[in-house]
């Protein structure tokens, strides 16, 4: 519902930007706003198909790669080399029996998977897949819309998409999904801030919020190289935003059964699944657009034939190939890293990613201001740099030295896990043990005195011991 409206709004906004007289070369947005309705429908269908097919492919690829990493075979029964396994699973899932818990809030329970899946597809609309091409004689760009705020569309879509997870967990009416939903809510609030901040540097350098302009701005160098810290933070928060391992706390299988989707089955569960994978694809594409030069060919290829491989339909190949790198990264992370504990995860978000990002933004804003200003001479720049380095060195002196370990602590060898050293001397009694020992002795003495008083013999002693047995 909202997606349709949003689309209407987008197109109307676009239409307004369209000039009456198109004498100068049309901009990307103008060309796209000029698309006939059949072309728009074609693009929408193509994007939807791309999302679904990528999902089916990703599930299979993930299973195969993870299997390989664990020295297993992975799916190899359905279709050639098992590549149709996820399709078979999907069909099965669609016809599976649907079970709705009696304690579920039916309306919200029904709505949640839809809210989860729709925004994921909406975010596809602003990703530029390629430059200007001709489709059935119509000049157009391989992109659905080019909004002046395209970057924000992806952020907004992921923000709305989380509602599906949170509401699904709440509406299920059982504790595990609720815990998953709570985690998800906290997670998305924390990591969206980190993600939004990591975009600031890119926007600063591209001077635009539009995805198409950002790709064009990377003609001379990828932002991943120029803005490496932003790139790293974006990739970390991207994994956090999609609830994937090692940040898959909302559905932590070993703690929360299935997390937010524990009570879901059949098609509704399939929708959650679809949403997760489409989100992965979208954010991978987004990362490519922002940091890896979008659909442009990588360097040695881009130099061939005066940029021939950056024209026509070729760029789709580069875009998808770069996207695959990120998708593989997702799988690799899942196969390698254990899940974060919740507090560690929050600490990483709020105490590492956000502050580091803020410092970095201030730094590049300063550097840019100095670089673009005409009044600053090279000599002054050198002095600025020297002062900055001096300040950093002075500040580093303020960092307190590592606390010296007290001699009382248990010696550890390797890995931080306390292990007895080879030359272990069994320690003498600690004060506490000594006190306990004393207590013990006093009690024994008392007991002996009682026995001496002549009440009974051995059996009583064992009975006493049974009472003392630890609990």
């Amino acid at each position: 519902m909202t997606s349709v409206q949003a689309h209407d709004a987008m197109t109307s906004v676009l239409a307004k930007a369209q000039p009456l007289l198109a004498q100068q070369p049309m901009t990307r947005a103008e060309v796209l706003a000029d698309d006939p309705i059949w072309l728009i429908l074609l693009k929408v269908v193509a994007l939807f198909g791309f999302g679904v097919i990528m999902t089916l492919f990703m599930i299979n690829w993930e299973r195969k790669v993870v299997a390989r990493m664990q020295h297993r075979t992975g799916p190899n029964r359905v279709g050639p080399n098992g590549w149709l396994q996820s399709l078979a699973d999907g069909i099965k899932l669609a016809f599976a029996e649907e079970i709705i818990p009696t304690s579920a809030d039916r309306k919200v329970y029904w709505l949640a998977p839809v809210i989860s899946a729709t925004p994921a597809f909406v975010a596809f609309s602003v990703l530029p897949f390629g430059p200007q091409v001709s489709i059935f004689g119509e000049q157009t760009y391989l992109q659905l819309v080019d909004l002046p705020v395209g970057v924000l569309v992806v952020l907004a879509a992921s923000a709305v998409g989380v509602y599906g997870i949170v509401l699904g967990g709440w509406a299920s009416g059982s504790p595990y999904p609720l815990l998953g939903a709570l985690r998800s809510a906290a997670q998305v609030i924390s990591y969206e801030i980190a993600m939004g901040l990591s975009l600031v540097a890119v926007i600063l350098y591209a001077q635009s919020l539009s995805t198409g302009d950002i790709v064009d701005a990377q003609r001379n160098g990828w932002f991943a190289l120029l803005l490496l810290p932003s790139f790293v933070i974006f990739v970390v928060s991207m994994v956090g935003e999609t609830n994937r391992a090692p940040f898959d706390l909302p559905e932590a299988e070993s703690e929360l059964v299935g997390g937010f989707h524990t009570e879901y089955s059949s098609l509704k569960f399939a929708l959650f699944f679809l949403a997760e994978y489409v989100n992965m694809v979208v954010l991978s594409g987004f990362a490519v657009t922002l940091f890896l030069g979008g659909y442009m060919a990588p360097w040695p290829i881009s130099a061939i034939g005066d940029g021939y491989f950056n024209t026509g339909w070729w760029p789709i190949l580069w875009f998808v190939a770069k996207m695959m790198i990120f998708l593989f990264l997702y799988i690799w992370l899942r196969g390698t890293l254990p899940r974060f504990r919740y507090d560690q995860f929050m600490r990483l978000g709020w105490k590492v990613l956000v502050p580091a990002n803020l410092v970095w933004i201030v730094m590049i804003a300063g550097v840019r201001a100095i670089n673009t200003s005409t009044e600053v001479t090279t000599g002054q720049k050198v002095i600025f740099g020297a002062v900055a380095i001096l300040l950093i060195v002075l500040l580093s002196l303020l960092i307190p030295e590592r606390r010296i370990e007290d001699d009382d602590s248990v010696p550890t060898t390797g890995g931080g896990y306390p292990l007895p050293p080879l030359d272990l001397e069994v320690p003498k009694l600690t004060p506490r043990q000594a006190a306990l020992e004393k207590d013990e002795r006093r009690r024994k003495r008392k007991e002996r005195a009682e026995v001496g008083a002549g009440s009974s013999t051995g059996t009583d002693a064992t009975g006493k011991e049974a009472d003392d047995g630890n609990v």
Partner: protein
Amino acid sequence: MTSFSQAAMVLAQQGGEDVVGTGEAVAFWVLGPLSLAGALGMVFVRNAVHSALCLVVTMLSFGVLYMVQSAPFLGFTQIIVYTGAVMMLFLFVLMMAGRDSADSMVEVLRGQRLLAALFGIGFATLVVSALARSLVNVQAQAPPDPYDAAGGGGAGGLGRLIFTEFLFGFELTAALLIVAALAGIVLAYRDRREGQKRSQRELVEARFRGDYKRRSPYPGPGVFATGNSVATPALLPDGSIARESLSDLIESTNTARLIAEHDRVLGSQTEHDDARALLGGESGETGESEQEGEAK
């Protein structure tokens, strides 16, 4: 699409005149009632989460209305900030409070109704006067061009205005937010003095130093157990009961009976060797201070 572009052309030609395009009108008549319904629903729906959802609908409609008004930046920011972050926090709190928790009928704040009525009337006056003024006095302007990165309705123009003309108001709002955030931190802060609660590492070290009788956790249900409840005692490989797994705190376990049974099975033998393997103590009769140690 064609109707939209026609409307846009009409709009572009008319410039600053007071004309509403077809697309805009359609969007308004769809979204206006929707946002109103959402707002009313928020007030009247019983369930707190449903109420929050109604508010989400209103906010989303507003966001789309902004976009239709050639302010896409504002529209998407509205969706990201209000729908994405603020309402998510609301939902978070509502879920923490519990699914079926009803509103308390006891008023905690004194004079709340009076203040609410006063502020409500004041706010209504403000809104009505602003609306009246906008209908009478204000000249309609041509919509700013959102594609113009430097000025106009995009992020650039907004940023310029915020940091020049409206700087004072902006800084004031920022100060208010910072004060609110600090207040939140102060209210929620709990002083954890050192030594009050040991960290995982400190606890491990204390265990290995020997401050506790037992270095490992208590035994779980075990391989031969028929259930994994804490009320079910753990079984040792010979089928006897691991006495460490019996808890005084759990009433449903008949601890006395099980201990007696344990002793009967073992006969005169005081302890099973394996059962004591994980205990730090030398012999079997060191267990009584265990609870004390763990409680510390």
